């Protein structure tokens, strides 16, 4: 612990290059601006009071590519319109920047990377608003960002499924299947079990709204073998078929996607498969289905007067 300093010394801004001649100049006054990093739950609430937004819950165990999916979407818009929409707004621009940085040459990395999301970060959101490139109709998305350990916990203790608020509020629940583990014969069965168990835990608990779309998204498809060694692809096709069969009818839609958001080898175009996935998220925000209230019979004169005025 450092010793207490006089007030005038404690206020020195170590990042400011100040000369001796400026010592007598009073420090400029500053006005605080809203943060522009990842949105907390309170920030997301605040956004929703301002305008409607569709919530996309990205769900899966750690290292599956959840954060990379969101940041690579952002990277597409840094280069121009994407998926027939244009970038419109983001309250989490610096959050996107921070999470994207390790994929950029400026990071001095020899391979692209994405910082791991810590369990201590809890639940956060990326905000991305896009507009249709023709009629400029805007859609706001809140894309969830939570450490994979939390979803592993639900896989092990399904009773906790209702505690994860992003699932209950989501218009789209995107279950991530790690393509890297799927490609590895030794880890394939476990990768499939992981996504199967997590999807079952949330859906059986009633955490996913019936109005929501559930998706199975296989990431890192650049790593999936092709040709004669295509056991992984066969297993994936079978899983996709079972996923759609299990959840169609229970939810608004059950869909599957295969993506390669960022091929480290550069053999596949960046953002492969992301365009149809983003398009699937651009739907009106989910409104919970509410039964119309049942009115008692209106029989007295005041009620009749009211009804006459309405007619």
């Amino acid at each position: 612990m450092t010793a207490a300093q006089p007030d005038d010394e404690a206020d020195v801004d170590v990042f400011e290059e100040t000369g001796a001649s400026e010592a007598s100049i009073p420090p400029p006054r500053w006005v605080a601006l809203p943060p522009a990093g990842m949105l907390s739950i309170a920030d997301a609430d605040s956004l929703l009071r301002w305008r409607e937004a569709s919530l996309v819950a990205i769900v899966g165990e750690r290292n599956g590519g959840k954060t990379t999916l969101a940041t690579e979407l952002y990277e597409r818009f840094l280069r121009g319109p994407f998926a027939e929409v244009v970038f419109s707004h983001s309250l989490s621009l610096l959050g996107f920047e921070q999470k994207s940085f390790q994929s950029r040459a400026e990071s001095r990395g020899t391979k692209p990377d994405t910082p791991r999301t810590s369990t201590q970060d809890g639940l956060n959101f990326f905000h991305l608003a896009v507009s249709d490139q023709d009629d400029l109709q805007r859609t706001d998305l809140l894309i969830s960002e939570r450490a994979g350990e939390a979803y592993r916990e639900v896989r092990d203790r399904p009773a906790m499924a209702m505690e994860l608020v992003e699932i209950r509020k989501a218009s789209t629940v995107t279950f991530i299947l790690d393509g890297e583990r799927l490609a590895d014969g030794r880890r394939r069965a476990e990768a499939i079990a992981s996504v199967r168990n997590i999807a079952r835990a949330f859906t059986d608990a009633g955490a996913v709204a019936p109005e929501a779309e559930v998706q199975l998204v296989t990431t890192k498809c650049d790593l999936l073998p092709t040709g004669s060694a295509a056991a992984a692809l066969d297993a994936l096709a079978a899983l996709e078929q079972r996923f759609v069969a299990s959840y169609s009818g229970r939810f608004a839609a059950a869909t599957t996607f295969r993506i390669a958001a960022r091929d480290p080898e550069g053999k596949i175009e960046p953002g492969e498969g992301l365009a149809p996935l983003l398009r699937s998220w651009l739907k009106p925000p989910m409104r919970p289905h509410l039964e119309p209230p049942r009115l008692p019979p209106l029989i007295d004169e005041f009620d009749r007067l009211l009804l006459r005025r309405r007619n």
Partner: protein
Amino acid sequence: MEANFIIIGLPASGKTTFLAALWHLVESGEAESRLQLDSYEGDLAYLNKIAEAWRNFQKVPRTSQVGDANVSIRLADRVTGGKATVFFPDLAGETFDAQVETRQCRPEFVHGVAKGVGILLFVSADVTGHHLSVVELNGLLPKQEEGVSTGTDQNEQPFPRSEWEPKFVPAQVRIVQLLSDLLRPPFEARRRNVVIMISAWDLVKNTGLAPKEWLAANMPLLYQFLRSNCAWFNHEIYGVSAQGLDLNDSSAIHSATSTDASRRILIVGPGSEGHDLTSPLAWLMSVE
């Protein structure tokens, strides 16, 4: 009704050079301009200092170097008779960098963009929004021949990675953040008139692109943001070369000395090209 304009932009985006050339243009009257000098307020030392450097083909000192100068120039429209004040607040480009990086701004800026103020936002053609990804950079490097060992593991990171800091945010993202800030408190959320001034236009003139096309190609996030938020930002895009030439090119300077200084100025707007630096201001006045 009297209009007001404020000049803002990131460091080295050409704000001061523009002001120096504008002051010379309206003060000298040597080339026709839509707006003419009406009156001025405050100390002229700052304006004279930067205009002197500009006239002498010297690099115009940056706002952060010459310091405190809240400059106001009153202009009058030759056609409509309307009056306008150009306000150049004592806000160096570093202040706008700090706004993005530390999420705080100066109260003068909040007041400066109050109701009825048109914004001249400078971006430099010398600083584009492009940044390479690691994969793109690897693709540009010479391929390593198979079987040839370099003595290092391909997966090995030969030097430590840099950790993210706000200073790494690309220019186009910074500008989008600055404009996005205007939509939320402490700023008043309302429709604003904005001119995007792409400075150092002489550097990109030979591409044959119009300023709007250049912005779409080189700062695509900013272009998309402006396009999709036209309800908030009524905007026009200009290319400007207030310096007019490369200050290291002595033959270009020699040629330029044979004409009026105002003729060095190049401004390219929607469907027009000329020397009249007041044309974007006239556009802002017309949409007030």
